[in-house]
């Protein structure tokens, strides 16, 4: 009986060894066939539609990337999935809503237009205030989250940290629901950033709208990512963050204040999530208490896709996931209801074929 078991196990392991390749090749073949079918045989969509999908994917991907960086930073240092990170992003989106609502009530009459409100009189300033408030509040939420919930458990088993993170996520989500109500709220943008306005370009004889909000979010997320890259690579704070991620004890011996660095990491990841939340609010225009949960999970997927602990990986993963999600349903010829299924299937398939992600993991210790 025991021998049989061992033999069966060995067979399983051999299958497992080749399964990775088999699944990968089969999948690649299937994808090429499917893409060939959709693009050349069926021709269900014309070039302008594809461009539209790609654009919305890029915009979504930029936001995912910003959230994913937060996951990756925290995972690199504490080896925990910060499940409440999506809720930090939700807080950012709510800040955007409240700032715009507040500024809409402040009158700023000028000659010729007595009904003008602050939001439309100084649109750039208003957007700046929204970002400032959103990023500050989210940064503080990240800080307090770490201080209250995670710091006392720094050396606890990781299962406990993970459960704490889930608890914090549930708490924040339901607090937002009880405070602000379950129904979705409309975010009214300043007039210069109306969601239907944008540049129109002609592709294949049809107009494609590049909305201002979309272009704005994409550019801003790119700028923030570049800024973060410099922060991590060039500044003293970045160096100490990398040192703590490599080896906490040695970093402490070299004079790095580990607690402070962990706090700062949470603040930075909170700020990025807050920026992405404000962008989400400006671009999508709707916010409620579950705004953060699905993007949060998907951003973690993006972080795994690019390679956990790897900041360029998180950016690439975020963009890739956004594009896959928005082009996938059309590409594989399935229902648009199922775009979330595609995102999660991507995660599972990536973990089967290449568990270390596209750009590889940058984790020093193999902590199981």
């Amino acid at each position: 009986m025991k021998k049989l078991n061992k033999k069966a196990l060995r067979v399983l392991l051999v299958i497992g060894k080749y399964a990775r390749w088999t699944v990968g090749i089969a999948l690649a073949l299937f994808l090429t066939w499917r893409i060939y079918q959709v693009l050349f045989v069926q021709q269900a969509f014309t070039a302008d539609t594809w461009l539209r999908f790609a654009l919305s994917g890029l915009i979504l991907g930029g936001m995912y990337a910003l959230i994913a960086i937060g996951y990756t930073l925290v995972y690199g240092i504490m080896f925990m999935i910060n499940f409440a990170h999506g809720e930090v992003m939700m807080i950012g989106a709510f800040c955007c809503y409240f700032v715009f609502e507040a500024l809409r009530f402040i009158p700023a009459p000028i000659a010729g237009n007595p009904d003008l409100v602050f939001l439309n009189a100084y649109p750039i300033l208003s957007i700046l205030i929204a970002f400032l408030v959103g990023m500050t509040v989210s940064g503080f939420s990240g800080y307090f989250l770490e201080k209250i919930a995670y710091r006392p458990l720094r050396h606890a088993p990781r299962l406990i940290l993970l459960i704490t993170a889930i608890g914090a996520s549930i708490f924040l989500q339901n607090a937002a629901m009880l405070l602000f109500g379950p129904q979705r709220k409309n975010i009214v943008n300043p007039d210069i950033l109306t969601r239907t306005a944008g540049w129109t370009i002609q592709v294949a004889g049809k107009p494609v709208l590049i909305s201002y909000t979309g272009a704005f979010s994409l550019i801003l997320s790119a700028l923030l990512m570049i800024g973060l890259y410099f922060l991590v690579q060039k500044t003293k704070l970045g160096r100490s963050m990398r040192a703590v991620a490599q080896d906490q004890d040695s970093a402490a011996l070299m004079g790095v204040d580990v607690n402070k660095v962990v706090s700062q990491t949470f603040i930075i990841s909170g700020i990025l999530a807050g920026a992405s939340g404000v962008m989400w609010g400006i671009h999508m225009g709707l916010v409620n208490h579950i705004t953060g949960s699905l993007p949060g999970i998907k951003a973690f997927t993006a972080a795994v896709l690019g390679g956990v602990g790897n900041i360029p990986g998180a950016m690439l993963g975020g963009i890739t996931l956004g594009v896959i999600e928005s082009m996938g349903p059309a590409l594989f010829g399935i229902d648009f209801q199922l775009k979330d299924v595609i995102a999660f299937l991507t995660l599972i398939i990536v973990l089967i074929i290449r568990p270390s992600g596209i750009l590889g993991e940058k984790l020093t210790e193999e902590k199981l």
Partner: protein
Amino acid sequence: MKKANLVSGFRSGLVFGIVLVFLFLIGFLETGAGLLSKFFGDPVPTNTLPKLGYVILFLALMAIWSGSGSSKKINPDRFSELVLPVLVNGGVLGLMTALMALIFGNYVKAGVDVRNYLVAVSPASIKMLMLNLTEPVQAALALFALMTVATFLGALLHFVWNRHLSEKVKRTVSSKIESVGQSKMMSLTSHPAARYIALAGALALFFFLPRMWGSYWNYVLGTVGIYILLGIGLNLITGWTGQLVIGYVSFFGIGAYTFSLLTAPEPHAIMMNFWLALLIAVAVSALVGFLIGLPILNLRGDYLAIVTLGFAEIVRILLKSDLLTSFTGGPRGIRDIGGPTLFGADFSSDVNFIYLIFVMVILIAFVANRLQRSRTGRAWEAIREDQTVAKATGINTFSSKLLALTLSAAVAGLAGVLFASRNQFTGPEDHILLVSINVICLMIVGGVGNIPGIIIGALALKGLPELLREVSNFRMLTFGALLVMMMLIRPDGFLPARRPRMKRPMVEDPQEKAEEGA
């Protein structure tokens, strides 16, 4: 030293002030006062506010808590050292409450309805906060005075208790317990006959109670039983093997749907026998668990959590989508699911069903208990404690984890079958992620890795909310806070697991003997 005391008083006031503001903003002030009112035998009718006295009592209790907390923290020798910090504490708390009353009172006075932004803050609840006073300034002053005095009172009470009473009370209580005759009680409960009598009593209770207390309680108890099954199942992989599975509901859903498709007249009209369909559904769930685990379990531990989370979402979206409507019934779900039969006779009345659930719970609990003490169970616990060491001692960690996941998926499938069959209906909304979060919660509240703990947890989380209907809005919020607090304060749960005591092998270790000789 004195400055530190002041700071700690300030901090206590600030924390309690924030909590109080938060509680008011989510509308818990009303609920809390209502609960107090119910506690004193004066239940509040729906759509009316609790009486003023209970609101004051609720606020005062918060302040007393805060004051006694800072007294406990400072722990002075003389009361005079306590006066200033406690005044700071009460002042901060009172100031925040008063400020809140002032702001909202002025809003009400100006006729602004803040409910567009803060849904729970109705004009009536603001009036309640203002202690039924009309002028915001008056209300603010009254609240400030109330909170400061109550905080002071709290500190005084704690000081007196701590200085003069606690020793005395403890001594009396402990001497009383001794005088009751602990030894006699112990010998009585540990006698084997007593255990059998207790067992027989419990069995009789299980047999007669469901016949007596009506279908509503049978329904509630049945739900508790199903959650106990889920808890025991999740405990196999998460509690004992230490691998978090967040999307546990997917196995539950797969079991329920497989069973439903096999027994319901629509959409496939297979109408299979209950027991056969049950076996198939459990096998399918186990198989899915196996297939999920195969590529994931040799990766980093967290990946299992996130993959099962994604999988649960995939299952739910697919069940809801139009793609599978012809196969699974789509968003409408499946109706008229077959009930159990016993030797050809119908066995699906609610009383019979609760027997079935009880039997299944006892069976699964027994199997799980045996498993824990077996070689496999010990291997699982070794993996939980340290995977590398477990590997080094010759445990095949991958196949052990795979076995745990498969078994726990099978138990979830069984729970899903019972759930679908009892409700005679199942739809995509029965299998949302909340179910698995509930299961994780009940496992943690009761005590990870402990079957009696899981039973207590299921009763507390699924049974108690039926008793306290007022707080149902705040249930998930409390869950979240409870999860964090439990992890911070008591990571082992209310009934922490004890390691099964193994007998030492009778063969003596030759090396040890040699060392003793030397």
